[in-house]
């Protein structure tokens, strides 16, 4: 991308007054406390998310990693009220100072786009096939920023350039089917950042894309953070994506956050046995040198009707004992281990800090 790509502030169109000038500089833009989500199903209540805490500072990229059913997407969707009515949400979600849990549809609608925006895994099903991409991006701007159709189109061209689409002035007239998968995802990102939200939620943004295309999309996200100061929440199952882009990481398992740390810290010294298992189960080039087996995590992810008063990973954990099956461990810094930084928190009765370091020794 060239350095002359116009961004907000450098452009001719009139920017709306910045309403968040006081909220942005310090303090988190997003603060989630004790978020729980329960779905009522035919077979009774299903607990999808249980007591999640999360903060996102301005310009920070936080990753949530976990396998299918761990509650990572439900957590993300609950932030802006995107869940169906069957979801019961409790706890607190403060976005730019406003409480989102229990907010009216009008309040939620006002926050979407301006304060929080989403990109999802499958760009084709999120785009309208009968409208040009310019119209679709323009719609957002007309609705939220009150631009005229002509202004909106000009701004759409700038946004397409911002997300690295070549010849944006021509592409703006294309329909989604005329674009490749990577281009469509770039269009989705352009739509999401059209109103310069403070928080961008990227739910598996590269899962449907090829690796050589993925690298470009991750670069676009990083650049948005660097140039616009957008805070980004990346939801993924892919530890490689986390390693590439995140500043901090939360690991979720069966609806709960089991570990939280800075990205280097988490990969170097995973404390939860699930995190460690995930790391050694991921194929990493250069680690397997022909003879190694991948480490397996025995058993399957439990489906939780209600959150038990126990560690949800206990049945699959080699280190589990009676304590693990009779009481739920709280997310806390492992206080007995001064070697670990205070912001490294783990929900485990027997964190791995005492064990010798295993990962990394396999590296060639």
């Amino acid at each position, binding site marked *: 991308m060239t350095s002359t790509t116009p961004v907000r502030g450098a452009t001719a169109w009139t920017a709306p007054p910045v309403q968040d000038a006081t909220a942005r500089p310090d303090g988190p833009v997003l603060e989630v406390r004790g978020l729980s989500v329960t779905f009522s199903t035919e077979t009774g209540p299903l607990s999808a998310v249980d007591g999640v805490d999360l903060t996102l500072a301005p310009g920070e990229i936080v990753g949530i990693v976990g396998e299918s059913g761990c509650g990572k997407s439900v957590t993300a969707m609950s932030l802006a009220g995107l869940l169906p009515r069957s979801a019961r949400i409790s706890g607190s979600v403060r976005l730019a100072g406003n409480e989102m849990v229990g907010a009216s549809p009008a309040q939620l609608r006002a926050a979407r786009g301006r304060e929080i925006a989403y990109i999802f895994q499958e760009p084709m099903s999120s785009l309208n096939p009968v409208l040009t991409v310019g119209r679709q991006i323009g719609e957002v701007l007309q609705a939220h920023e009150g631009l005229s159709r002509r202004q909106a189109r000009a701004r759409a061209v700038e946004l397409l350039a911002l997300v690295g689409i070549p010849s944006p002035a021509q592409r703006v007239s294309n329909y989604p089917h005329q674009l490749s998968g990577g281009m469509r995802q770039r269009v989705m990102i352009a739509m999401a950042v059209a109103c310069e939200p403070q928080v961008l939620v990227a739910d598996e943004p590269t899962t449907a894309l090829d690796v*050589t*295309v993925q690298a470009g999309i991750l670069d676009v996200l990083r650049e948005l953070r660097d140039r616009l100061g957008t805070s980004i929440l990346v939801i993924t199952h892919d530890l490689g994506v986390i390693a590439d882009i995140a500043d901090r990481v939360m690991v979720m398992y069966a609806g709960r956050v089991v570990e939280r740390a800075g990205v280097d810290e988490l*990969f170097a010294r995973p404390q939860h046995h699930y995190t460690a298992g995930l790391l050694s189960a991921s194929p990493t*080039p250069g680690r397997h040198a022909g003879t190694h*087996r991948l480490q*397996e*995590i025995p058993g399957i*992810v439990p489906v939780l009707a209600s959150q038990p008063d126990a560690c949800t990973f206990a049945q699959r954990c080699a280190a589990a004992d009676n304590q693990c099956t009779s009481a739920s461990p709280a997310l806390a810094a492992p206080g007995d281990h001064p070697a670990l930084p205070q912001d490294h928190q783990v929900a485990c009765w027997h964190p791995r800090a005492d064990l010798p370091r295993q990962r990394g020794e396999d590296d060639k």
Partner: protein
Amino acid sequence: MNEHTASAPVLELEDLVMHFGSVRAVDGVSLTIRKGQVMALVGESGSGKSTVGRCIVRLLEPTSGTVRLGGADVTHLSRGQMRAHRRDVSIVFQDPAGSLDPRMLVGEVVSEPLRLQSWRHSRRELQTRVGEGLNQVGLRPEVARRYPHELSGGQRQRVSIARALISDPTVLIADEPTSALDVSVQASVLNLLADLQRDIGFACLFITHDLSAVEYLADEISVMYLGQLVEQGSREKIFARPAHPYTQALLAAAPLADPPRQRSRTRVILGADIPSAMDPPTGCRFHTRCPLASQRCVAEVPPLLQITDGTVACHLVAPDGSGPDVRRTDKAGNHP
């Protein structure tokens, strides 16, 4: 590996071409797999890798070229004629939920290949074979009386593998067998396939988009781009000394689950997205995305040439295998 090179090929593709109307999905692919060998066929979406797999099991009839199974030409056999060769080759698909009949019990799914082969089995014999088959993939025999929807994704993929192996095939085609599974389950299915392959000794064509998944499984790796092979070589060679810029880019693009190492790597961002197979680029098909492409690459099709330790189709690679590396070329990988 080396001990296989002397043994007879169990699967040969010669200049395989598969066109769907104007879409040139596979455009001249030649491959040889020998007894007990594991060949990984790696490529991104639209590279034609799955179409190659479907031509081999004759779900598709190739437009031209030859498919030989155990020396027999099966390229244009009718359904009936093909039946005699069905037990030699099996396929495992990516999505076990879509490839298992939801109305059939697991036992029926697994025994179906045996029942379709004309020789008759007693019920008890079938039951025993199914039990053994399930046991082999780490499932209990009782699973035979369950329906696919009662199983987890990993268990379903184990059922697919049991079905594929029950006729003792000499070649197993595994088409992205772990891509739909969670990371921790992926590991157990990959381990299972590796163990079975070592114990039983079938040859395997492992089709995948993920190079890192085959590093400890494959003997040989073939890399496909837009319907053609661009590089082939032993696993050690491809990982240590990839010669084709596309192979190098693939290796560089997969992010490492190791933040400091990942941050310090040179980023290779390929120019555009993968072009359409309806209208593939002239010359080298990779030239529209290759950071090193020259005029010659636009004009001239590079032949697949033998180098010291493999084959590669690139104008920039010398016969001794030396050539540029996009991962070490300064600024070459930036946006156009």
